């Protein structure tokens, strides 16, 4: 098998390596970074828009460009998340927690540098796993059924505890519950009954994640910046020097475990169909905080927080392609659109693709590795340019953020309902943050709510209404135990900290 793999790698390199393909990867990566950096333009949308451009290209060339775009856009989301507190994509939501506080401390360039290095490492990790372990990992993905997905959602919701401030656990749970409630708006998937639509046709499809995300973070941030219209954000000193932005070897060494753990989490989450980079970044952030010696520093602007989120969301790229290439099952919405890119070139994903067209499969995977390198180089060049946006005074920045938010919200479904929802969520975000509510659990609830509800009903249908199905399947049981342990451990820690505060 080892010799086979080496032969396939060599075949892949020979198949894909050409100046044209390198140029196409560069174009895809550049466009991906721009798309990812803009709130409202998602990775999925970017890939969907570029698939038609690949019609006239060879399969490898087309896939290489799309892979570069996929990879670049996941990293691109971190730029606006760090500099403007407006995540470009849902996958960068967790990057805001420490990325923006770093910008406020004058370390915006450093945060971008950490995000770049972490994205590079996570992306390479995911691609290497894809290269070497795709077929066996695919069977792991197949072992996940509705009960396992329900428990994954439950486990994901326990992250709310770590996302909540020490003093406002109740508010964290309230925010999460609010997000779960928002996710129930629209036609339910079992009965097809319109819930909480109040006769409004625009709500039949429910509330999309992206308008909620843009409203809660981008629009609400713009409204907050109105209070200081003449201010500019702290521009990092010597921001024109790349050296100040990249992490030192000491810093890299200090976050090495976080990078490895987050890359593993991102790859595993990416392999699970239906779980995307947004979930991966939240889970990784939560785990990094839990495993840290100084969990109380998370959220104040530390490099570990940025590294955890960014390494995992880029590792998802490789992970999500495992079930896609081996089974034809997309790992997330972005890889679902990539499936379209495969099909239009007459490539049917599945086990036969690896044996029938190894040149294409391994060529594509090798191009992903190269795409990470190109992303790193482009990101390095951008480290000089991106922080300059901080020089723009808020009185000019605010209208620009809002018009981008409006265009981005509209672009999802060409619907003004989405823009209206974005405005509403903007106000909700301002009000809730004023009362010290964390916003991230709302986003988590909106993401995990549909997964939890659909998986719950599918499981009960399979088991004829018996809840025992969640406890008799090994993986589901393990996830349940992990969820309970996670809750108990977090509650114990918070109780301990409260005791220490009282005794101090």
């Amino acid at each position, binding site marked *: 098998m080892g010799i086979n793999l080496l032969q396939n790698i060599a075949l892949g390199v020979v198949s894909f390596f050409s100046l044209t393909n390198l140029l196409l990867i560069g174009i895809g990566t550049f466009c991906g970074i721009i798309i990812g950096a803009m709130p409202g*333009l998602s990775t999925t*949308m970017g890939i969907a*828009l570029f698939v038609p451009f690949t019609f006239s290209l060879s399969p490898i060339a087309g896939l290489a460009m799309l892979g570069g775009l996929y990879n670049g856009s996941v990293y691109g989301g971190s730029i606006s998340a760090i500099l403007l507190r407006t995540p470009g994509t849902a996958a960068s939501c967790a990057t805001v927690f420490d990325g923006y506080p770093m910008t406020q401390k004058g370390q915006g360039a450093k945060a971008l540098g950490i995000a770049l290095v972490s994205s590079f490492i996570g992306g390479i990790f995911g691609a290497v796993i894809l290269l070497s372990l795709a077929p066996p990992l695919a069977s792991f993905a197949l072992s996940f059924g509705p009960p396992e997905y329900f428990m994954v959602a439950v486990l994901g919701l326990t992250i709310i505890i770590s996302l909540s401030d020490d003093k406002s656990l*109740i*508010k964290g*749970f*309230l925010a999460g*519950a*609010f997000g*779960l*409630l928002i996710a*129930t708006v629209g036609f*339910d998937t*079992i*009965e097809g*009954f319109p*819930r*909480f639509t109040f006769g409004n046709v625009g709500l039949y499809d429910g509330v999309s994640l992206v308008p909620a995300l843009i409203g809660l973070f981008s*629009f609400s941030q*713009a*409204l*907050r910046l*109105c*209070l200081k*219209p*003449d201010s500019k954000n702290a521009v990092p000193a010597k921001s024109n020097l790349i050296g100040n932005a990249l992490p030192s070897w000491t810093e890299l060494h200090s976050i090495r475990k976080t990078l490895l753990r987050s890359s593993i989490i991102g790859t595993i989450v990416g392999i699970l169909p239906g779980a995307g980079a947004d979930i991966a970044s939240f889970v990784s952030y939560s785990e990094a905080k839990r495993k840290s010696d100084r969990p109380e520093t998370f959220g104040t602007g530390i490099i570990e927080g940025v590294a955890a989120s960014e390494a995992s969301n880029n590792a998802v790229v490789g992970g999500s392609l495992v079930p896609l290439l081996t089974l034809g099952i997309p790992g997330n919405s972005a890889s679902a659109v990539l499936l379209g890119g495969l099909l239009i070139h007459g490539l049917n994903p599945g086990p036969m693709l690896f044996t029938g067209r190894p040149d294409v499969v391994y060529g594509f995977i090798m191009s992903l590795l190269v795409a990470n390198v190109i992303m790193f180089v482009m990101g390095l060049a951008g480290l000089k340019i991106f922080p300059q946006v901080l020089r723009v005074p*808020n*009185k*000019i920045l*605010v*209208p*620009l953020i*809002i*018009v*981008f938010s*409006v*265009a981005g919200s*509209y*672009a999802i479904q*060409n619907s*003004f309902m989405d*823009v*209206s929802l974005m*405005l509403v969520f*903007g*106000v909700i975000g*301002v009000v809730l943050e*004023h*009362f*010290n509510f964390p916003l991230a659990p709302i986003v988590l609830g909106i993401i995990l*709510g549909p997964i939890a*509800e659909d998986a*719950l*009903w599918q499981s009960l249908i399979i088991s004829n209404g018996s809840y025992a199905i969640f406890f008799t399947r090994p993986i589901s049981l393990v996830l349940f135990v992990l969820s309970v342990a996670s809750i108990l451990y977090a509650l114990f820690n918070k109780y301990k900290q409260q005791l220490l505060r009282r005794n101090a």
Partner: protein
Amino acid sequence: MSFNFDVLLAMFFAGTSIALYVHTLGFPEVSAYFPQRILMFIFVLSVLWGIESWRKKEGASVSLSIKPVIIFVLSAIYLAIIPRLGYVVSTFIYTSASMAVLGVRRIATIAAISVGASAVIFILFAYVLGVPLPRFPFSL
């Protein structure tokens, strides 16, 4: 004596959760299952939060700043005029008005940024990305 707005908001959440729960009584059983349990959870948490805030006798202060309110109202007007005036014209009007409200005084700066932003976003979304943004009714 200062008013505890946290208690007020907690009461609002609790009241809203009750109202929405009553609304779900008209749903089919399966459709109502999830929302009802979430609403019960919200009600319990709201009560706990209200009690906690009342006992601590502390909460967030509330003061309304005028500029964010004006920008929000302008944004709502912007949303209303886009279908009528098209994206480019509406965006030009909105960015100009917003910058003026926030204190940009130089007309040249307002004009340049408004024109630039409208053009860049329109070209990027409408031509590069193919998103059909509303156009001015009388344009070709």
